[in-house]
């Protein structure tokens, strides 16, 4: 590794870090503005033009608040938990390819902080680690509601990680590689047919939908935010947190939202790929800027979708959440994975797989119905 490479890596890390912080600031403002629009309110409008500096003001306020550690808490773990939330949130963004390649002074710089061979598995590893922050925050607070919130959180996140992994496995299967750069590379096609080569079309829409639901549950966004259900759990796992530690949890949650949207774009919507406006070899504007614009536009659309979900859907009940995860998402994505694999082998195998999944699906539905009926009978006595 030469000095130039080291500097390039350093710049990439710093830029990604700054970008994440700034976009979290904008996202919180965006979310509040959009929701207030949907609810026929004005929303934040005091700090800066259109209230855009509201988040900054809130951040400064949190920074100067008193930092409380409850008497009955486990101090070490209580202080450790917010960092366990923020570190995976920051790290998982490094594998996202934000754009194509930029040439500066004979150095080809890929717009991606790191491209480890384990690729998309890194995301799963990081989301596995982030479970700890919620669990430990709730447990170490030493009071009831945070503990209940954290027990819910761990069950929810471990359950939905399975569905998330299965939908990612379909993408990996059709790509033939784990790295995010190869996933994006396999979706790039000739500029005139950019849509059909994206994974959302190539895989059928099912894995995309499963990923969307599972990732929303994984980052505890509404309508899956039972972890912090106000009516039942006060504030959930972060009830006892205040000041900067609370701000870290908040920051991590929004960073995860951005990262998951970016991952969805990378996995299913071609990442930085798009209908580049050009005629022959003449691009409109510099060549490297279009991938970044497409990527940014797609991620913003996704973030709008997330905000929209929050403004529209009521929170699920706990049993509905678990039913959705274990009885619908996991079987559907398993069957779809089988079908995709068989289709890759041969068309006849694919049709056989579809028939087999349908038969197994009917069997499963029947088994669930019988179980429910028997439970009802035994309840009546």
């Amino acid at each position: 590794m030469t000095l130039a490479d080291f500097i390039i890596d350093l710049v990439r890390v710093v830029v990604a870090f700054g970008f994440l912080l700034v976009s979290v600031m904008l996202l919180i403002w965006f979310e509040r503005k959009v929701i207030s629009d949907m609810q026929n309110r004005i929303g934040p409008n005091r700090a800066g033009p259109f209230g855009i500096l509201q988040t900054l003001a809130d951040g400064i306020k949190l920074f100067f608040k008193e930092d409380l550690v409850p008497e009955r808490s486990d101090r070490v773990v209580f202080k450790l938990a917010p960092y366990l939330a923020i570190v995976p949130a920051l790290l998982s963004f490094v594998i996202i390819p934000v754009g194509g390649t930029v040439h500066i002074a004979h150095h080809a710089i890929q717009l991606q902080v790191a491209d480890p061979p384990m690729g998309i598995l890194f995301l799963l590893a990081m989301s596995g680690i982030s479970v700890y922050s919620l669990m430990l925050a709730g447990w170490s607070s030493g009071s009831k509601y945070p503990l209940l919130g954290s027990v819910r959180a761990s069950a929810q996140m471990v359950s939905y990680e399975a569905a998330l992994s299965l939908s990612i496995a379909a993408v990996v299967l059709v790509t033939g590689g784990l790295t995010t750069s190869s996933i994006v590379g396999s979706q790039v096609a000739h500029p005139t047919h950019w849509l059909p080569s994206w994974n959302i079309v190539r895989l059928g829409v099912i894995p995309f939908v499963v990923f969307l639901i599972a990732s929303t549950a994984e980052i505890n966004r509404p309508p899956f935010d039972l972890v912090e259900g106000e009516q039942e759990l006060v504030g959930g796992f972060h009830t006892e947190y205040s000041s900067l530690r609370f701000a870290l949890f908040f920051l991590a949650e929004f960073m995860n939202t951005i990262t998951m949207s970016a991952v969805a774009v990378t996995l299913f919507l071609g990442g930085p790929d798009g209908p580049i406006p050009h005629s022959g070899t003449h691009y409109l504007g510099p060549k490297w800027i279009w991938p970044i614009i497409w990527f940014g536009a797609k991620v913003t659309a996704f973030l709008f979708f997330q905000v929209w979900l929050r403004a529209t859907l009521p929170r699920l009940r706990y049993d509905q959440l678990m039913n959705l995860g274990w009885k619908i998402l996991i079987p559907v994505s398993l069957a779809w994975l089988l079908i995709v694999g068989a289709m890759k082998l041969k068309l006849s195998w694919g049709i056989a797989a579809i028939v087999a999944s349908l038969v197994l699906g009917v069997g499963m539905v029947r088994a669930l119905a019988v179980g429910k009926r028997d439970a009802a009978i035994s309840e009546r006595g």
Partner: protein
Amino acid sequence: MMSVNFLAAVAHVAVPDAVTFAVAAVVVVLGAIGVVATKSPIHGALCLVGTLIGVAVLFLEEQADFLAAVQVIVYAGAIVVLFLFVMMLMGVDREESFKDDPMKVQRVVGIIVGACVLAGVLILANVQWVTGAHSANAPLTGRVSNVNDLANSVFTVYLLPFEATAALLITAVVGAVLLARRRSVVPLVGMTESPEVPPGSPEVSPTELPGDDGGSVAEVAPGGEDKDQNEVVSQ
């Protein structure tokens, strides 16, 4: 020209290599000591996570990327989470004193067994008559990433052992579910008192929480009654 691969790049250079190893090794050993030395089981579990992540970094340094990722996803991300989950739910997170050990003999046995395992590992690291293959202590040369190599060997040469392992695991899970459910409905032979579940404690056991929707999957006891489980058991 330049490696995008920041993590692997670290492993290529001599000096960071030694530093990475040293840091990871310290984390692994400290974590392992913490698991046995800390009083609270939750702290012990956290130290275990530290050890697992340290081992993952060591795997990464040996360019076993897939193994490192799976180590973190499966062990740190799922298994220890379940440990913690059970501890929190069952409320066994009270601190244990290091002094009052109900079985004094287990320390001596533990030291002896530990020494034997250490000796075994040291011997196995230097011979190959046990496994029949040379240990791979160098990066895989040529060809593709080790994910592809691993997939090739698991799904072609060693397909049968792989599938047999999968069947074994699923059997274990089904067995565990069956045992956990049976115990709450039908008394086992020689067990007259209500086992485990005292009337005051929460009705859910950790094994039935994920996927449980409040009894729709409950099996029917031979008598057709599984509503008041404690009563049935104490009959």
